[in-house]
């Protein structure tokens, strides 16, 4: 199996005035292509910090993070931004859609950011329409995020994460703001699409039922991996 991300003896701490707050300590983790991993743990255990390191949004205070065998410390800020834009898809609990844009424009945003011409090609436009259909929100494409339901927002966020054909999908409590029925629908959709597209997915959740669907479950407590199953 191809190794995508590796964390070796990674620790992360934050400074709060003179105090040092540890968030993660001595984490060792390998994430392979096509793997679905769920991260569970109580609030404040370091799940999101771990996700930020995997998503190349943050640097480790100690230890090394490798992306496809390359130490991420050697990447420039721009290179990291490009990897995030093209190879990693993010799904957030709060959806994080831009309220001034339509659903379709929100989905097209990563393409525009990565485009050199600031234009969407006809094939990309076709891909957006395809995702809108697949995620069952094609009738909402011209609506603003405030005009659609939570489930539809999250579907739009999933489409936005998938539009660049990423290698890794990072979902930070994607059902945290949804009711049980919609949660179930979204999770089923995420797992289905990940399998279909052979995506690597890392999902942070409180819900054990959701976690159990993953290939690997990582339990984290007080900044340490306590269990891997």
């Amino acid at each position: 199996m191809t190794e995508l991300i590796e964390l070796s003896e990674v620790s992360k701490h934050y400074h709060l005035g003179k105090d040092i707050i540890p968030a993660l300590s001595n984490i060792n983790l390998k994430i392979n292509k096509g793997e679905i991993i769920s991260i569970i743990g109580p609030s404040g255990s370091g799940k999101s910090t771990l996700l930020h390191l995997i998503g190349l949004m943050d640097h480790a205070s100690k230890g090394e993070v490798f992306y496809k065998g390359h130490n991420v410390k050697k990447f420039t800020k721009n290179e990291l931004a490009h990897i995030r834009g093209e190879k990693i898809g993010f799904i957030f609990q709060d959806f994080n859609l831009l309220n001034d844009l339509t659903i379709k424009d929100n989905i097209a945003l990563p393409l525009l950011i990565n485009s050199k011409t600031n234009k969407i090609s006809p094939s990309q436009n076709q891909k957006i329409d395809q995702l809108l259909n697949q995620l069952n929100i094609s009738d909402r494409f011209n609506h603003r995020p405030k005009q659609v339901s939570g489930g539809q927002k999250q579907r739009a966020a999933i489409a936005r994460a998938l539009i660049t054909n990423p290698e890794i999908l990072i979902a930070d409590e994607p059902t945290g703001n949804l009711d049980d029925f919609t949660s179930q629908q979204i999770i089923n959709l995420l797992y289905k699409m990940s399998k279909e597209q052979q995506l690597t997915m890392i999902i942070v959740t409180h819900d054990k039922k959701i976690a159990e669907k993953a290939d690997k479950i990582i339990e984290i407590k007080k900044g340490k991996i306590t269990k891997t199953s």
Partner: protein
Amino acid sequence: MTLALSLGVLLMTILSGLNFGVKNYFLQQSNQDKILRELTVTPLGNKLELSLATLIPKAQLTPQLIEKIKQIPEIEEVLPTNSINGISSLQVSLLGQIFQTDALLYGAPYQSLNLPEISQEEWAQYQNEPYPAVISTKLLDLYNLTFANANNFPQITKENFIGKEITILLNQSTFFETQEGPTIKLKAKILGFSPNVKLIGLTLPDKTIEKINQDFLNKAQDNYLDAIVHVKKPEYLSIVSEKLQNLGFQVTTAEQSLKTVEGIFKVTDLSLNFFFLVMMILSGLLISSTFLNKISEQGREIAILKTLGMTNQQIGNLYLFEASLIGSIASLIGIILGIIFSAPLNIFLSNFLSNILSKPKTFFVYSPILIISLILYAILTACIFAYIPAMKAAKLNPIKLLAK
């Protein structure tokens, strides 16, 4: 923010247009081909010296010297100015009142008047009364702007004077008790106003002055006050100037006068630039603070864009692009309103200065360079002052912003 910048550009448009219009007028006046080929010759020590109310020339320019000047090959024509060899007063009835004052009587050839309204034939009627006469444009402006205003006297227009008969009182002073002979009354008729004639006094044809000197003052015309010299080409100015200086004359070129005018405009330009700088700082500070507020409000959006792969540079450029857009829109609004407002202002200024002859027809002139400069100025102001907020936005930490 756009409104404040527009207001700044509007003020700058009006002031720049006015500055450019007035400057353009004076430079055009000084840049006429004839003026560029012109120099004034006076013998050394013959500078006019102001002594209380009268101007006393110290020395004279003789006809022999004039002939010497005419022999210089690069010279096209020599136009000497003469004056009467005695004292005189002028009497004129204007607006129901009789004005009388001491005045110098000068004589000038037709070519030196630079007054197309008067024909050469009119000026050639030098032998018969009323003699043709012109007054300095600047004298009328001087009277209206200072003397009339200070003494609450009525303003005099060009029309009040044109065609008016003036009585010349030879051998008589209005202010001093001097009598060089019996008072002789002569009539002159004002034909127009010339910017080229002597400021204080009445200018008649040079031959009329010769005639007055000969017939009434019994003095033959043997010297001149000064002479205007026109060279054949502007590039001959320096050669001729040197030759005349070698002959013992003092020479003033139009180029020197132009430099004086340009010097004055440098001061107005500097003052205007200082004003623009203050405006730039004030509107710039407003732009900076608005952008800082905007960025703190849009923190979450910035974080989302960064997460989706936008680089720091792209984020910074996004705000700089917005700033340049604001600058462009503000400058266009300001310039359009400025041009619209300058039309009634032009009418107001023309009416307000209706009695002033040395004034441009259009006070506000907008050149493409001026408009482009104003647009660039507004864009630059917006971008310079949005730069620090834009860089701040670029460096924001998306994790902290998303955690909020």
